[in-house]
């Protein structure tokens, strides 16, 4: 395992896209220390900001308040990144595999345009979780993001596949222009959930304020809720699906597009 401890709080954002399992697995301790980060406009060595222990491993653990450290785990395809503290923007952006776990909060664009792998944030996450970057037509394409706490606006914007689970309340525009995949909201969301969605599923376990362009289309327990619940159970989280417990109100839309997405709101009996 490689352990990186933040020894100095950066004065301006520190861009650390080189701190990924794919890269560090090939580097000796000396090479990791000498790897280049960007502190604002200046190139700095990793050891100017981090105490580095270990080498040649695809398991990375970071300690400290890393809320100003951006692009950690960017494009990673393997291994683990464990952060004991807060993480900055673009954590796990464009990752395709491996696992990221944060015992703290994460910043904006968590798992932005990710293609695979798993992310678990024990605290909150910022805006645009699993979203598309500006101008890009497709956000997250695969993998899963679990956030135990709240998530910011535009969560899952333009996502095409994959799963986002928000344990806390979500802000506005969840699943904006969503094209596929699943978003589970355990504590519901603010307004404009599912706005302009084309396809995909948003499930809320509490009541939601919906856009006027969604239409009610029945109450039922979809088969996939059962399947999803099984998958989630393995990850230590529950999804109700038993008919005896209740049912899902199904709304489809967004008719402005017009889209064939669905929003399922759990109604316990």
């Amino acid at each position, binding site marked *: 395992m490689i352990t990186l401890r933040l020894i100095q709080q950066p*004065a*301006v*954002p520190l*861009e650390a*896209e080189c701190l990924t399992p794919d890269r560090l697995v090939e580097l000796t301790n000396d090479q990791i220390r000498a790897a280049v980060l*960007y502190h*604002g*406009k*200046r*190139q700095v060595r990793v050891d100017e900001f981090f105490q580095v222990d270990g080498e040649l491993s695809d398991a990375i653990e970071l300690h400290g308040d890393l809320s*100003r450290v951006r*692009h950690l785990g*960017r494009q990673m395809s393997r291994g683990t990144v464990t952060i004991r503290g807060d993480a900055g*923007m673009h954590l796990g952006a464009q990752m395709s595999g491996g696992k990221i776990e944060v015992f703290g909060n994460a910043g*904006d*664009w968590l798992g932005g345009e990710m293609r695979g792998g798993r992310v678990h944030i024990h605290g909150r996450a910022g*805006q*645009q979780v699993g979203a598309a*970057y*500006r101008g890009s037509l497709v956000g997250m394409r695969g993998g899963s993001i679990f956030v135990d706490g709240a998530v910011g606006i535009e969560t899952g914007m333009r996502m095409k596949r994959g799963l986002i689970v928000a344990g806390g309340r979500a802000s*506005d*525009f969840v699943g*904006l222009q969503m094209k596929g995949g699943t978003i589970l909201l355990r504590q519901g969301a603010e307004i*404009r959930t599912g*706005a*302009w969605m084309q396809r995909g599923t948003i499930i809320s376990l509490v009541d939601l304020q919906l*856009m*006027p*362009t969604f*239409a009610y289309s029945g109450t039922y327990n979809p088969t996939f809720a059962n399947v999803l619940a099984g998958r989630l159970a393995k990850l230590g989280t529950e999804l109700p699906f038993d008919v005896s417990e209740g049912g899902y109100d199904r709304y489809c839309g*967004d*008719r*402005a*597009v*017009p889209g064939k997405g669905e929003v399922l709101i759990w109604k316990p009996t």
Partner: protein
Amino acid sequence: MQKSRFLPRGRKDRTMVLVDIRETKSVKAADIFLQVRPGKDFELLTILRAMIKDQPISDAEVAETGVSIEALQDLVARMKAAKFGAMFFGMGLSMTRGKHMNSAALLTLAAEMNAFTKFVAMPMRGHGNVTGADVIMRWQTGYPFGISFNRGYPRYNPGEFSTVDVLVRGDTDCVFVIGADPGATMPQPAIDHLARVPTIVLDPHVTHTSRLAKVHITTAPAGISAPGTAYRMDEIPLPLRPALKSSYPTDEEVTRRIKEAIQAKPDWMVEGPQRLETQV
């Protein structure tokens, strides 16, 4: 109002619809006024997007926006019957909850209206030459605003590199302000950061920002005593014809001299390849 070949009666041949959250003075100039509930712009525009495509919308849902279904049906009919529709929007739309998505809703509606008739949309730009800044940043960097050059080439990410966010998070350690007074207009945490770091202000007046700045330089006001160019909000550049002569230097001159003074110092960039095939 201008009479034209296709609208020979001028104003009489035109229909103006005003949408606002309150009755403003502009209501008098409008043919139709639609009063939308504050914060319901996005919903209203999204309903219109559905309505132009004949998607069913229930009255109750429409009522929440503060506008009746009849009024919207009338509006849609007028829009579709128009020869040439134009939508103008301002900061009431782009600066309220939903922000850029409110503008996106209006622009998408305008684009979709072209399935029926000619329609265009244009933002009403508040500040003098903000369009010029937009246009120039686009041709020189590829992006209209919210840019970082810290990696030696332009990158774009509003929210990450946009000023209010940068200041509130404290992501910058020196600020150069020109043709703006953020000290008067930005949220307090942003202003606090401006005061915390060295700030440099170029302005014809000693502004709120100047008062909390490290350096203020007085410059000649554009179009009054400084010559040059400004872009109209439809991206047409117009020459300025200053009527006065100023004893203060122009923004252009001062900025160039600062740039040249920086250029005279040793470069901090580490020697590397001339181009990157893959960006960060």
